[in-house]
């Protein structure tokens, strides 16, 4: 049947339509088969330095975790007086607060419409609650073994790093969860400290470094990228320094980690882009370009 159909229809041209019966068998394969196949239409090209710049967010977060742990270590060893830490923390946060408004001349504040009174209130809430609960925190985990606490806080800090909002729109990103995990870890660690004042100071410090500091970073990154890079460097080096004072090996490993994240990973990403093979064709599900929310707003 195939044979006779072919012979009888030398001149008849196959066309890609279903509504008319063509003189070809149903499993006929034309020259034009798969001609609409496209590859890598939406593949993006990355600039190396741009990627490095973006990676600095990760660096920042790693560093803040590192700094936090280092500070905790100092306090646990008793090398660092809580009052001193409290003072510096307060001063730096005030500085940051002023800076936060100076950078963009207060547009952000206008946009959010948040009054200074509200800020003061929440600050008071923080301090009051932390202070009130610090004795409870002190006795909270005494019966739990130290290793459990360490394991838990390591787990929580890792979680914080994983779920942190680095600006990528992935499903697992949840800034709330990451912040909560950080606070949980800080409370766990603080409860191991010798006295309740320590616990109080530790928790406040945790808030400063995990909640307030990233806000400031974001704003810096948005407005003055150069200074942001500078700050990042500074922060990274301070973190390294702190770690070095505890253990050299740890410091080296941490440095390696930072370097690999900031330099190697972007390089590898760009290399991998070459092997990308993404098939497209008429069968793809068309995605809707324009935003339809305007019809409902």
């Amino acid at each position, binding site marked *: 049947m195939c044979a006779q159909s072919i012979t009888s229809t030398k001149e008849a041209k196959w066309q890609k339509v279903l509504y008319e019966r063509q003189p070809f068998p149903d499993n006929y394969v034309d020259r034009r088969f798969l001609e609409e196949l496209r590859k890598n239409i939406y593949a993006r090209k990355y600039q190396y330095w741009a990627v490095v710049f973006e990676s600095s967010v990760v660096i920042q977060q790693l560093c803040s975790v590192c700094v936090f742990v280092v500070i905790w270590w100092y306090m646990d060893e008793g090398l660092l007086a809580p009052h001193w830490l409290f003072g510096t923390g307060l001063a730096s946060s005030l500085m940051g607060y002023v800076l936060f408004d100076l950078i963009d001349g207060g547009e952000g504040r206008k946009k959010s419409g948040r009054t200074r009174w509200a800020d003061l209130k929440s600050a008071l809430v923080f301090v009051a609650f932390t202070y009130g609960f610090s004795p409870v*925190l002190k006795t*909270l985990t005494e019966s739990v073994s130290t290793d459990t606490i360490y394991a838990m806080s390591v787990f929580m800090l890792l979680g914080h790093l994983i779920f942190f909002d680095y600006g990528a729109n992935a499903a697992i990103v949840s800034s*709330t969860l990451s912040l909560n995990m950080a606070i949980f870890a800080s409370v766990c660690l603080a409860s191991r400290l010798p006295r309740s004042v320590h616990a109080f100071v530790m928790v406040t410090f945790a808030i400063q470094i995990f909640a307030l500091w990233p806000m400031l970073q974001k704003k810096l990154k948005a407005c003055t990228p150069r200074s942001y890079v500078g700050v990042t460097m500074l922060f990274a080096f301070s973190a390294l320094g702190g770690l070095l004072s505890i253990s050299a090996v740890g410091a080296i490993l941490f440095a390696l980690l930072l370097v690999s994240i900031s330099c190697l990973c972007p390089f590898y990403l760009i290399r991998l882009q070459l092997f990308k093979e993404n098939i497209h064709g008429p069968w793809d599900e068309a995605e809707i370009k324009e935003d339809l929310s305007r019809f409902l707003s």
Partner: protein
Amino acid sequence: MVLKAFFPTCCASADSGLLVGRWVPEQSSAVVLAVVHFPFIPIQVKELLAQVQQASRVGMAVLGTWCHRQQEPEESLGHFLEGLGTIFSHEPWLQLCRERGSKFWSCKAIHRQVSAAPDVPSEDQVMLIFYDQRKVLLSQLHPPTVVSDHQDGDTMASTGGLAVVFDTVARSEVLFCSDQYDEGPVRLSHWQSEGVEASVLVELAKRASGPVCLLLACLLSLISAASGCRLWKLWPLPFIRSKLSTCEQLRHRLDHLTLVFSTQKAQSPAQLMRKANMLVSVLLDVALGLMLLSWLHSSNRIGQLADALVPVADHVAEELQHLLQWLMGAPAGLKMNRALDQVLGRFFLYHIHLWISYIHLMSPFIERILWHVGLSACLGLTVALSILSDIIALLTFHIYCFYVYGARLYCLKIYGLSSLWRLFRGKKWNVLRQRVDSCSYNLDQLFIGTLLFTILVFLLPTTALYYLVFTLLRLLVVTVQGLIHLLVDLVNTLPLYSLGLRLCRPYRLAAGVKFRVLEHEVGRPLRLLMQINPLPYSRVVHTYRLPSCGCHPKHSWGSLCRKLFFGELIYPWRQGGDKQD
């Protein structure tokens, strides 16, 4: 259709004569009720049939002839029986005949007015079905077929075929009750009930029952009036009464008795059966109670009990104290928060102390109390048992308190944790849509939430342990009470009368019938033996079980576990709340 002749076994050996019975055209079945013997005067037979008919409202008729070939020489009889057909005209005319030699019968059904050949009588096939008149008369089909209306028995055909047979036999009881000693004008042979004087006692009982019922009913109404008076409606009493299983049980029994001794007659046999069951269960109950009473009051067992009781209570309290001590340490190497542990422990210890003092306060009166309680056994075993369960509930009141405290605490913790866990994940419970939505909290909410979450998480094991231990204790008590309640319910609901009936007179409760094919030879009519298929015991219990006084928990296991996990309170008795949902 095949003609079915239902023939009573008791007439199989009767002398020749006329077959009297009912003809059901719908199923073309002839129900033979009796045999009329020679000699008789046709008019008298007709009169008898007429009066039986108007008494029983069943269409009686002469169905045919019956000849028993052992006495008479056949040739004379044959024509005679032929002749009878002309006197009592019936369609079709049955001719049953039992030979001397063989045990096989011959049976002919003759149609006279067949349009084709008027003179040649045509026959069709007949099936003989033997039935035991007495059993069929007394038995009662299950499920009871609704008797359409008592006005005319011929509408019975609307119900199933066999129901008609049963109904016919049951209604023509008057035929059998006719006294066997006075010689009526017509000699019948059928199953003969032992007339009136056979059962004098029964008759006396029947006569007596009316006034007795009246009297008791009056008494009961007095009692119920007393219980219904306004004094009991004062605030705490109804609550207490709803909680005490004794009151429940008493009210239940009261209802039973009022129903049993209600003066109006029971309409349906089912209702009669129900009354009988209640009476029997009450009687048994009281009998058991009296046995218990005699056992108790012999050789001063009450005193021993009373002496035993106080030390037992003390001992229990001791054990609890040790348990608490153990919990306040590091029980089973569990990591508990010491501060909270101490607080809870002290709290509960104080309770136990209170309890012990209370017990000692009331120890001198216990014996008297017990004695009176023992008296209550004469009201019935069930009452005594429910009083026992109430006493247990009272004696373990402290356990109940512990349980409630623990449960409340635990419940609060669980709910707080669940909502804070949602906050921890950045979600919140949307009440309107009944689902979990994501929600953006602001910083201080997050902070405080997490702080509380951490604290609660670390305090959870302590409360959970206390809750667990006291729940186990509570469950122990509840199980004991539950067992007692089960026993009470068993006595309350078991239909003893029906079971006894099923045991001694299986045919009285019939699930249906079953047929056995009697041996037969070709050319002779088929002979079946209809037996009564008794109701299985399970269905007897299921049909006739009395309503229980639902005072025991109706939890399914799943819901029970859920409640335990979420720390909701569980009760042995049915809650007012449970009744609504």
